[in-house]
């Protein structure tokens, strides 16, 4: 007796090709997808660890104060108490780790002070601003103002 499915049997072949492809895909997935994927959400869990372990370049004021308590105390009493050390002295984490090998760059007083304190109609009124050209008659800011406690 003729198998009634005989004339449709060829349709199995593309179906089998499809299934074979699916199997290859599943095996590939098992082999290639990173192990930590899906740990916390739809991403590589290991990425969180990698991002956390990036090196820091700024040490943070508390670290500076640990070795420089004098300057920190002076600053805490003055108008620059909100200005953290590295805001003027630059990133100093490498200095904190090895103070002799890495020294923070010398602060360029004239350029630095003016960047914040140059008079600008856009700056808020409460903020101390001066017209640098008229203010000091050419003298350096440091001549009259101590940077860590600048009020006169």
């Amino acid at each position, binding site marked *: 007796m003729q198998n009634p499915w*005989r004339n*449709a049997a060829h349709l199995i*072949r593309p179906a089998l090709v499809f299934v074979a492809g699916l199997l290859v895909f599943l095996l*590939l997935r098992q082999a290639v997808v990173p192990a930590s994927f899906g740990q916390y959400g*739809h991403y590589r869990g290991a990425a969180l660890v990698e991002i956390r372990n990036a090196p820091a370049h700024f040490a943070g004021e508390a670290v500076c104060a640990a070795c420089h308590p004098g300057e920190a105390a002076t600053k805490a009493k003055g108008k620059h108490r909100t200005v953290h050390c590295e805001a003027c002295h630059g990133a100093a984490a490498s200095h904190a780790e090895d103070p002799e090998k890495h020294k923070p760059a010398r602060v360029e007083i004239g350029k630095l002070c003016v960047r914040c304190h140059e008079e600008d109609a856009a700056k808020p009124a409460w903020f101390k601003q001066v017209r640098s050209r008229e203010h000091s008659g050419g003298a350096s800011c440091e001549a009259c103002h101590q940077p860590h406690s600048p009020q006169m």
Partner: protein
Amino acid sequence: MHETIAGVQGFMYPNEVELQWSILIVLYPYITGLVAGAFILASLERVFKVRAVKPTYRLALLTALAFLLVAPLPLQLHLGHPERSLEMYLTPHRSSAMAMFGFVYLWYLMVVLLAEIWLEYRAEIVEWAQRERGAKRFIYRALTLGSMNVSPEARRIDDRVGYVVTLVGIPSAFLLHGYVGFIFGSVKANAWWSTPLMPIVFLFSAMVSGIAAVMLLYMVQCRMQGKAPSMECVDTIAKYLFYVFLIDFSLEMLDLVHRIYEADESFRSLDFMVHTRLWGSQVVVQILLGTCAPLALLALVQLVHMSESWRKKLYWIAGVLTLVGIFAMRWNVVIGGQLFSKSYLGYTTYKLQFAAREGLLTSVGLMLLPFGILWVLVKLLPPWREEQAV
């Protein structure tokens, strides 16, 4: 006062100045649009029984396949890390339209297009597998997938299954290209893209471009065979082109009129952009030359009685203008959406390079490649039926 950054007018967020998606991302919807459009034309005969377009059935399928095979290439060339593109299949993010699209593409390629072509050509493949020699014999034997059963009953089953595949294929084709529209249309951050009309506009313009492409390719095929094209076929295709184009045009005008009327916060900025940076590509090329002109020509053919030769001339002009116009539409959406700032205060410029990876030369190459593939496919699986000696 103007920003001193080259090509920038007004204010742009600092990271916005450089365009993210280049001409390759213009090419991609254009190519998938041709695929969807060609397939819909093929389904006109298979499912909707429009007998007149039967001469283009096989050609439309092969055209769809040739373009579908090229479609991933502009994407690969655009990616920062194409070697990681498999990640979209291995760890697809289900909330991302782009990720889900990878599966829509695969589904359409394998289950719809390849299955339909295989079922359509099976009888001849088996015959060629037995008749041909050398490399061609090997290819045909592989394509038979080991089955030589081409009895009338088997062919009847093939025909029935092919019908179901085409039936499933129509919404699949809609999904294939509608999805691309959705990828743009669902970006709420971009006022030029964000509209529910986007997938529909993309889809209808895809159908327009696909139908125009197959119409032209059919006339080319006939010319190469030294035969006259069936005017009943070409006239019918042109009629469908006209009607679908009318719908497409209406949808695009609806979007435009709606924007102008509502005039939300983005309107002034977008309006300025269209009047300046997008004037040539949108108003001149897309609307006037690429839509109004072909519509007028096709309308003329519908209304005025013309000789065969005149009709063919007009179809050629209308077809070419249509293909250019639909490309311009993709350009205006993709590039246009990146020329204005999300602050609505500024504009930038697209610097199209010539010989770079995402440049003009690459794009031209990518547009020519499907024709090369089509040529190979036509050699391997000729769309014309052989004179069967019974």
